Every structure is written in C-alpha cells, then in structure tokens.
C-alpha cells in the first residue's frame, strides 16, 4: 500500500510533533531535567542554564559533593529510615513470626476467616509502605537527581519482589546496602553484591540450590542410633528435615543472571550454560541462624568441572562463583545488553545503536565503571538528537514524582504518594517478575491508566490529593485573562512545551470560568494531565 501525500504529511506531523518555539539551550536543559532527573521544579531550568548543561551533568555524576539537606530532613521523619536495615529486618521478621503464631491461634479456636489483615500500625504494613515512600520522596526531593534515577534503574534491573516471603524483612538492606552504595561504581561490584544479597538469594531461590545428592552436616550422621523415645523423635525430626531439603540444583537465579542481569536473552548462552552456572553457584546461600547474611555452604557445592560459554571452571569453592561473575561482567554481550538498557531508560524505548556503542566503549575503557558509561550515554549525540526529545512516556513513578516537582510540592510523611504510584500500576518493590518494570511505553499506556492520571492531575491541582501540599500562589499568580493564564501555566509547569492544540484547548476551556482561583486550578490540572506532561 502506498501512502497518499496527505497521509504522509499528517504522519510527519504525528511522528514528530512540532516543538514550540524555545531557544536551543532551554530545550537542552529541559531534556536533561526530564531524563537525568525526575523533571523540573520551578526554577530548575534557570539553574541548569546558569551552571551550563555540561557542568550540571558533571556535578550530578558526583552526588557525594551535592548537599541534600531537604531530603535528609524528610527521610528522618520516616521510621524505616531512622533505624538500621538490620533492625528493621529484625522487627519485620519478628512480626512475621508473630503473624504466623496468631494465625495458628486464630485457627485453633474458631472458624474465623484466615490471615487476619495486619493493622495499619503493624510493622508488616508500615515499613514496606515507608520504604516505598522513601523511594518516592528521594525522586521528588533529592538534589542528587541523576543518582536517584540510576538507583531506581538498578533496583529495577536487579529486581526483587518484596512480598514473596521473608524478602519483606530483607528489602531495606537490599536497597540501602546492596544497591545504593554501588549505583555509580563498577558493574562487577553491583553484580557480586546482588548475587550475595540474602534478598536475591531467596527471591530467585539460589539459597535452595545444592549439588545433586549433597547432604548437610546435620543430616550426615547415622540414622536410628540409640533407642527409645528420644531417638524416635530425632528420627522424625530428621525425616521432616529431609523432606524439606532441596534435592538438587535450582536454575532460577542462574537463568535470570544470564538472561536479565548480564548477557541478555540473545546473549548467546544455552541451557547447558544455565545448568553450569547453577552448579558453580551451588552453596551460595543464606545463613539460617541470627540475622540473614550471605553464607557459602561447602557441603552444598558441586565440585566437578563446569563449562560456561566455552570456558572451564575448576573446583575452587566459593571463589569459582566470584570468578564467574567477573567473567560475566566483562562479556561483550553483557556490555551491550546493559548499555542498551541504560539507553532505553535514558534515551529512547528503542535504544539507538550509537548510544549503545558509546556505552560499550566507555565500559571497555573503564572496565565497567558505571559513572563512565552513564556519562558517555548522556553525552552521546543520540541523547541530544531532536528525535529523543519527549520521546519517552513517563512511568507512574516518573509521572507522580515529576508532577509533584512541577508544582513545587512537598510530600508529607504519610505513604500516600507512594500508594498512588502503586494504584497507577507500579507498586514499588512489588514487581513479581524478575524482569522488573518495563521501560517501554506500551506497558504504561492503557485507557484505565490514562483516566487515573487525569484524576491524579486534577486532584493534585485542586489540593485534594492526600500526601502532598503545594502553594498555587507561588507557582502561578492569579490571572483573569484565559490566554495569559494558559501561557503562565505552560511556562511554569510544562517548561513551555505545550503544543498548539493543548494551549488552544486550555484557552477555550478557561474562557467562561469567572473565578480566577478555580480557573487556575483547572489550568494546572489540565497541564499535568496533558499529553505533553505524560512524556519526557
């Protein structure tokens, strides 16, 4: 079918919406704030312009040099951040044990419905909700914006679902100690840290993976020694333990390590490689007594030779796994796959080849320093190309964070805003699939989700959204002329990106509203709900 001239012309307009007049530097600053940050706050564009795009970016690449007092003060209002991850973990574990005991008691004495809901004050509700809220607050309030964008990226790349079981207790340490300190470090360091984290070991079952026929020392002794009741009890305990003992390797982590964390699904590995990786990692487990920590169980380790991608790994106990991770972190397929994912996040749903190449070259030069890879991507011509502007749909987290930032809003200390992100389809730390949340727009655009975004936009504008406060007077002065009001809102909230259709709709819709305060609320709501604001 040959497209007619009219369709072609319309298509050009549809594919590349005309950017409104905006000087080149402002356009660059807006683009950078959309991708290397969670959108612009009032005044941010001017601040980037004053510093210069390059220097702003350089500063963001060294977050430890940026003071972050507003965020620090905010986080101190959250219980979950005031206490150490270990302490939170212990409290949550105790609460899990208590809940099980309560269920047993409840079930014993009545036929009440099972699994009584945990009250809002229970650590099992409060801490996960606060952990989600901390992530949202960091996106909104932190001055270290690029760092927070990348923290979100890596938490998602090395996804763990916090509601599978005891992961609820492991999540604070996973976020605060495993991922966040390594966000801009060496990829290998991140890979090893996640591989040895109790959260990942439990979530993808490597803690259960043992060599074929391996027997733990506690079961290695002779059966049925001694006589009488004690021996019988010991035997029954042993039978129960034996029944629960893993019977061989579990490939789950090995497969996702290759497919998602390193090589990528087309990274050239086979099922035999998956099995070999699982065998290398047998024995990588979690300490059962006391606080959960990484533990290597020699008895569970498979001592034979294994071949991964043509390379033979000889028996070396735990070091074999470290050698494997170092090997995987340096594979060309890994460099490409991870660079492409970063480009997908930072540049476009379909990562441009030039961007991927820039990431790979920086990776090779720096032996996998994430800071260098990210710098190369953000300086690549593909990042700055016109077709990359406004090319990405905001995820629910990005939409909520950028909307609150756009109005200069402040989250309160309740987890309401994080819950909102969940209602929009992205409950944080609760993506069950190891793939993490999708980066492509088709995962986020659907009719129900759009309607909810309109509701959020109007609710936030009207000050009806729980969990956040903003000052409309500081944002946009009262204005009775609809044209001038539309322009002021466009400048303040959309960094001047509203297209003709959006501006004319706004003007028309505002024309008959007499009350300037009501008109302002409506205009702010329309701006936050506009097609332009859904993109970045």
């Amino acid at each position, binding site marked *: 079918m040959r497209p007619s001239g009219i369709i072609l012309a319309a298509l050009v307009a549809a594919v590349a919406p005309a950017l409104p007049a905006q000087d080149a530097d402002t356009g660059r600053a807006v683009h950078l704030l959309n991708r290397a940050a969670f959108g612009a706050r009032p005044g941010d564009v001017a601040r980037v312009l004053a510093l210069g795009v390059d220097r702003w970016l350089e500063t963001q690449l060294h977050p430890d040099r940026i003071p972050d007092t507003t965020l620090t003060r905010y986080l101190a209002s959250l219980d979950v951040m005031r206490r150490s991850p270990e302490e939170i973990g212990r409290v949550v574990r105790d609460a899990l044990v208590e809940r099980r005991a309560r*269920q047993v008691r409840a079930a014993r004495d009545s*036929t009440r419905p099972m*699994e009584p809901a945990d009250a809002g004050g229970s650590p099992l509700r409060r801490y996960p909700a606060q952990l989600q809220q901390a992530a949202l607050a960091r996106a909104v309030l932190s001055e270290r914006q690029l760092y927070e964008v990348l923290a979100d990226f890596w938490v998602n790349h090395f996804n763990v679902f916090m509601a599978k079981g005891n992961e609820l207790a492991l999540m604070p340490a996973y976020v605060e100690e495993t991922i966040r300190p390594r966000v801009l470090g060496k990829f290998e360091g991140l890979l090893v840290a996640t591989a040895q984290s109790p959260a990942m070991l439990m979530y993808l079952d490597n803690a259960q993976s043992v060599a074929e026929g391996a027997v733990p020392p506690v079961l290695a002794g002779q059966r049925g020694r001694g006589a009488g009741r004690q021996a019988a009890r010991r035997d029954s305990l042993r039978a129960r333990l034996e029944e629960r003992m893993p019977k061989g390797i579990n490939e789950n982590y090995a497969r996702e390590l290759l497919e998602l964390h390193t090589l990528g699904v087309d990274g050239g590995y086979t099922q035999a490689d998956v099995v070999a990786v699982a065998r290398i990692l047998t024995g990588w487990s979690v300490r059962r007594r006391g606080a959960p920590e990484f533990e290597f169980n020699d008895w569970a380790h498979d001592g034979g030779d294994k071949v991964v991608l043509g390379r033979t790994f000889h028996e070396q106990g735990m070091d074999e796994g470290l050698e494997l991770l170092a090997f995987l972190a340096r594979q060309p397929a890994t460099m490409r796959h991870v660079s492409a994912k970063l480009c997908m996040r930072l540049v476009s749903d379909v990562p441009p080849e030039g961007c991927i190449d820039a990431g790979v070259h920086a990776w090779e030069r720096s032996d996998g320093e994430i800071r260098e890879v990210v710098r190369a991507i953000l300086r690549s011509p593909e990042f700055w190309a016109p077709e990359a502007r406004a090319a990405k749909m905001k995820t629910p987290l990005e939409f909520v964070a950028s909307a609150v930032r756009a109005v200069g809003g402040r989250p309160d200390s309740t987890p309401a805003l994080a819950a909102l992100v969940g209602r929009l389809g992205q409950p944080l730390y609760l993506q069950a*699939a190891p793939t993490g949340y999708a980066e492509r727009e088709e995962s986020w*655009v659907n009719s129900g989700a759009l309607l909810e975004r309109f509701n959020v936009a109007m609710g936030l504008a009207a000050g009806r959204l729980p969990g956040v406060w903003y000052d409309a007077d500081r944002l946009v002065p009262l204005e009775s002329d609809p044209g001038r009001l539309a322009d002021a809102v466009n400048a303040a909230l959309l960094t001047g990106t509203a297209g003709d259709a959006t501006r004319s709709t706004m003007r028309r819709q505002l024309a008959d509203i007499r009350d300037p305060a009501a008109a302002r609320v409506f205009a702010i709501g329309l701006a936050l709900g506009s*097609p332009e604001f859904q993109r970045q």
Partner: protein
Amino acid sequence: MPCDCSTASMDRRVFVRAGTLALVSLGLDPIFLTRAAYANRSTAQPPNRQKTLICVFQRGAVDGLNMIVPHGDAAYYRERPRIAVPPPGKDGGALDLDGTFGLHPALAPLLPFYRAGSLGIVHAVGSPDATRSHFDAQDYMETGTPGRKGTADGWLSRHLAHAADHRETPFRGVAIGPQLPRALRGAAPALAIGDLQAFGLRGRGRARDRIEAAFEEMYAGAATGLVASSSAEAFEAVKMLRTADPARHQPGNGAEYPRSPFGQAMRQLAQLIKAELGLEIGFADLGGWDTHVNQGAAQGQLAARLRDLGAGLTAFATDLGERMADVLVLTMSEFGRTVAENGNAGTDHGHGTAMMVLGGNTRGGRIHGRWPTLDEGARFEGRDLAVTTDFRTLFGEILEKHLGATELTSIFPAFEAVGSGLGVIG
C-alpha cells in the same frame, strides 16, 4: 455495537490505523503500532455471538481433595482422620457425583448444575513444575509457562493479542480489582476495574463532564501514537459505560450474590456481560485457601471459603440464565495440598488439584482427567496428588473450543501436547 462515536472521532481512529499501515510500508515499525495492528484485524461486528471466559483464581492453593472429595479412594480416609469430608449419606457427607467423587457439602448449590450437565470437573490437574512456592506457581500458571520465570506476558493477554476476530472494545479483557493480574498483562489492552460505577473521571455532575470534555478535546488534538488510541479508547469506554450503565442490570432469575468481595466481583462481571460491552475475558480473585492449620472438614475454614465460592458461582450462573450458553467459568489454583493431614489438622503445599468448568459447551456431569489414585506409590514425590492433566491442556482446550483460538502454540509456547484436548468442551 453500542457506540455513538462521533464522525470526527471515527475519522481520527481510521487515520491512526491508516497511519499504522503507512508507517510500516515506509519501513518504520514503531512499537506503539503493535496494539493498533491487533485492532486492525478486528471487525466491526463479531462473527458469532460474543463468547466470554471468566477465570476465577483461588489464590493460596485450594485443597482439591476436600473440594472435590475422592470418597471412593480408601487412602483418602486413611490419611485424613481429622479433616476428611465424610462419605455421602453420612452427616455432613460429600454430595456424591459419580460413585467415586463428591462435592464438598458447602458447594451444594452447584450440584444441580452438575446434574444438569453444565458443570464439569477436572481432577488431578496442575503444573508439570514441582515448585511448592505460591509465588512461583501462580506466576507459572498466569504466564502459562511453567518452570520459566522470565515470561513477561500472561496467557490470557497472549490470547487477546492473537485472536483474529473480535469486537474492538476497551472491555475485551477486564479484571475486577485494583490491578491487572499477570495473566492479563501484556501487549493486548485490558482493564482493571475496582468498581464499575467509579470508573472514569472523578467529580460530580457538570464539573466532571467539564473535565472529561476538556481532556477529550485536548487528547484529540495533541496526542499521538499509542497515547492517542488509548485515550480515545478511554473516553469511549467511559461513554460506553455511561450509556450501557451496567449497574442498572439487577440480578436476574432471583439470583442472590454473596456480599463478599468475590460475590460482588462476579456480579459486576455479569453486569458487564449483560451490558453487551464485548467482554471476552473476565477475571476475579478469591483468596484464603492456604489452610495449613485446622482447615476443618464438613464445617470450618475451608468450608467457609467454599461456601463463598459456590454461592458466587451459583448466583452468576443463575443470574445469566440462558446466556450461560456463551459464557464459560473456569476455576484455577496454583497447586493442591498434601494427601495426608499435618500435625495441625491442616494440609501443606502439594501438587495436583481440581478445577471446575461451568457453562458454555462444557461436557458436564462428569469428572474429567485420569485419576492417579491416592496410593502411596502413585503419589507425586510420595506425598501429593499426582498431576495427570497439565493445566495448559485444559486452558488450551477452552481457548480453542470456547473462544475459537487458533494460535495455541503462541499462547502456550514450548508445550508440545497443546491442543491434545481432554474432551471437557463438547
């Protein structure tokens, strides 16, 4: 199709589709076109009457052996001294189905459907994967790829994406609840609706209409690609719901839904069907099946959950009446529970379970699938009911014979026995 789409809006949508083809012919293949391409294949009128599949997920692993009681298998009573449902005829006994199996007495309202041949049961059905993790097993059942964790989309979504002939309506796939279940996530659009009456823009009367009109105008003018088609769908859905007003459909034939969340979910699904909105896949969840402790026998915790299930299914089938010829309800659960009761008069995570198929062309009034027996030697890993029917065999047969699916190998990849069929659907 009850759609009063204005000409302008129709033109725009036609344009979006024409644009799709044009882009492809130019060698461009933007991702957003995937969905538009599915929509393209659709026809304005359904080729046949609208067929609907309702999936009810019993999350937490139902004890299939106390739901559909193998009272003719001696091992059942031997292994469950405290929690077995008594044999038929005894006080609180199972309701005999075929001399070997019986319904739990709390499911009594379903017995007439079985006798009338519209309720069929598949026993010893489940996953070929040995996992006893709720999380993993639910994931496997919803993605339709047991043993494989990386699958991004659900089997129901893949069906919606592959189905060649369908009405183009935003209500093809609807889950009642706050979020889409994994089974419905993927490239095909689907809606999660907590409450039909609250779907759409919030606000009252004219203020709400005003906001809706403003966004509709704005998106008609400024949105592109997938956002344009999805927003058009959204406003269309809101208008369709307002026109169809599903809430006006009161339960028919004297049906009484339980006031439980499950009962209300089933009631809303029935309303969507009666409102003729083109519902093809409906989904409802029902939890509370993880009966490790004191699960009870004829009475007790499990009985209470089954009562809710039975009452909800019965109300739904009664309400829809003759329409049930086009509607099929399938219950599923991630795995079953141990044959033997545990030390707490409950049951632990097991393997095979039972699923119910109600309505449509179900060859009901019988137990489908091969019964492996509860003999110790026949059990899975020596302790659980073995699986003799892969759940994909059942799901695949329903998609093929009830919904007319032709792409089973894409919906259940790497499943060789797909399409072999059980004979559950006539």
